[in-house]
């Protein structure tokens, strides 16, 4: 296939694909939050207080085995929370491995240190320090990404946002984040429709210039729609009595299970912090 042909089909379709991907991810997460796994049963506030420190500690640890151990904990928690490992592998691990793997590959040769292996033919030297550097990068990225994905996959977004109040996040931000999330789907839908209708009217190929015009015009249309929408939303809110004050219902209740689990997570975090020094 000629590169041009691939490209002219690609732009509209690739944008459509990434939009559909985002929607799929959101729906999948919503389905998963309804199951009865370990993380799903814990108070969202406990989850935030338990999982976010683990992300930070994975970044703090100065020993490789501690990071690997944290990764194992993440996998165990995922299994207990009904998150299929295959999904994690497909959605998180593979992507992180590809990205960080490519980034850290030259570090194997560029980091000065003890010679571990010399590539035949090329004569490039893999150093022990280079290998460790690459492993640090990949394992840290994988572990942190797994913990943060678990937090999102096992908690409805609205509950996660409300639980952010425990971190003293300003209430306005919580409300804005909630609304942003809602309107992302509306705008994704609009963008999706625009690209679909464009695609349905296309019979030939567009050259590069035309494609760019199409893409930027879509952004322009979406921006006009956005500003129009924000005005409409504002008027709708005003007509329902909105005066700038925002209130959030606080309906979380912590039970004995939450306390036990927070103790477990705090212990894991403390151990990782101690051994990872």
């Amino acid at each position: 296939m000629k590169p041009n042909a691939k490209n002219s089909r690609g732009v509209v379709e690739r944008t459509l694909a990434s939009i559909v991907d985002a929607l799929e991810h959101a729906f999948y997460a919503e389905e998963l939050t309804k199951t009865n796994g370990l993380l799903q049963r814990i108070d969202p506030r406990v989850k935030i207080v338990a999982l976010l420190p683990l992300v930070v500690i994975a970044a703090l640890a100065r020993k490789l085995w501690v990071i690997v151990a944290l990764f194992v904990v993440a996998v165990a928690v995922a299994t207990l929370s009904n998150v299929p490992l295959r999904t994690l592998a497909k959605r998180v691990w593979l992507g992180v491995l590809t990205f960080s793997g490519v980034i850290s590959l030259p570090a194997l040769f560029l980091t000065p240190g003890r010679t571990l292996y010399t590539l035949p033919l090329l004569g490039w030297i893999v150093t022990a320090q280079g290998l460790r550097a690459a492993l640090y990068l990949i394992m840290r990225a994988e572990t942190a990404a797994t913990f943060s994905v678990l937090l999102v996959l096992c908690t409805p977004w609205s509950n996660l946002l409300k639980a952010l109040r425990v971190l003293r996040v300003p209430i306005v931000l919580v409300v804005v984040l909630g609304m942003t999330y809602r309107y992302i789907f509306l705008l994704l839908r609009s963008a999706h429709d625009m690209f679909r209708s464009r695609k349905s009217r296309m019979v030939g190929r567009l050259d590069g210039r035309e494609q760019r015009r199409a893409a930027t015009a879509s952004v322009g249309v979406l921006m006009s729609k956005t500003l129009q929408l924000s005005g409409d939303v504002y008027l709708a809110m005003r007509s329902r009595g909105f005066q700038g004050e925002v209130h959030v219902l606080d309906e979380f209740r912590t039970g004995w299970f939450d306390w036990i689990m927070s103790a477990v997570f705090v212990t894991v975090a403390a151990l990782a912090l101690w051994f990872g020094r």
Partner: protein
Amino acid sequence: MHIPDGYLSPSTCAVLYGTAIPFWYVAFARVKRLLNTRLVPLLAVVSAFCFVIMMFNVPLPGGTTGHAVGVGAATVVLGPWASMLAVSIALLIQAVFFGDGGITTLGANCFNMAIVGSLAAHFVYRVMAGRSAITSSRRVLAAGLAGYAAINVAALFTATELGIQPLFFKDASGAPLYAPYALHIAIPAMMLGHLTFAGLAELFVSGGVVAYLQRTNPVLLGQKPSARVDEPRPVATSVWGTTRPLWIRLALLMLLTPLGILAAGTAWGEWGAKEFSDPQMRQQIAAASGNIAPPSQQPQGLARLSSLWSAPFPQYAPPFVHRPAFGYVMSAVFGSGLILGFFLLMAWVTDRRGGGAPRASP
């Protein structure tokens, strides 16, 4: 350009969160003052828009495609402060919900793309567009270049943050703990991709959006829409009110000065005369200078001039302070105090000369 978790050390992340917070605070205060009750819906919908356009594929010359951040377009239409907030919120949702960019590195990503990007785009657009007509092609060019500049300045900041990691953070065996490439590799590697592809994607989106809005909805570009925040500022009610963010930033920077202790050895070229005769220092100097041995004797000029002035706080700490970190903070307070004192004195002198002319005019 979204830095994932694990690429930056937690201390770097903390510093960048700390740097971003005053900007968020000021941006929020400014946008709120203008929008009042409109703030919540506008910010929410515009953030959603920023999120969605980060997904658009933009075709680039040469048959490839790229993603734009949209910070150029957002800044041109909304102004730098609203753009800063909207892009930050979009980045937050990307990081938390879609795992694009890390949670520990969110402060860094917001600082690079949302804050630095918006300010760079605003500056370039203002300078380039000047007072040209709303529908002039100069504005399209200005917006394009604003987007291009924003992405490249943001990339430079990102590369610098990544590049300083191996300088400071290594494990016992000398292996870098975080991003492994030093500045001389990180900066060219990062900039190559952004000066060409990613920068172009942003250039086309920013320029294209302005060209499109000129044809269809010039009101958004010309008149100040509800979201534009660069309205004439109301006259300040108090000096503290307007300068508070600056004071907070200054205090923060003072507290961060002990970071200097992290740097091993002396800065290149800042050697004292005595250090040329210390064998250990000579080794360090040679190592830092590409293994070229320093001259065997102290340079004569250096020896002669070094006795002319001896600093009251040698090595950033007065002799009676034994904790180096405290010494650094004290030096920072003392140094900033001297500079502020100097300017206060200047202000006082010029004020007296001006014969007490009214200070603020509406």
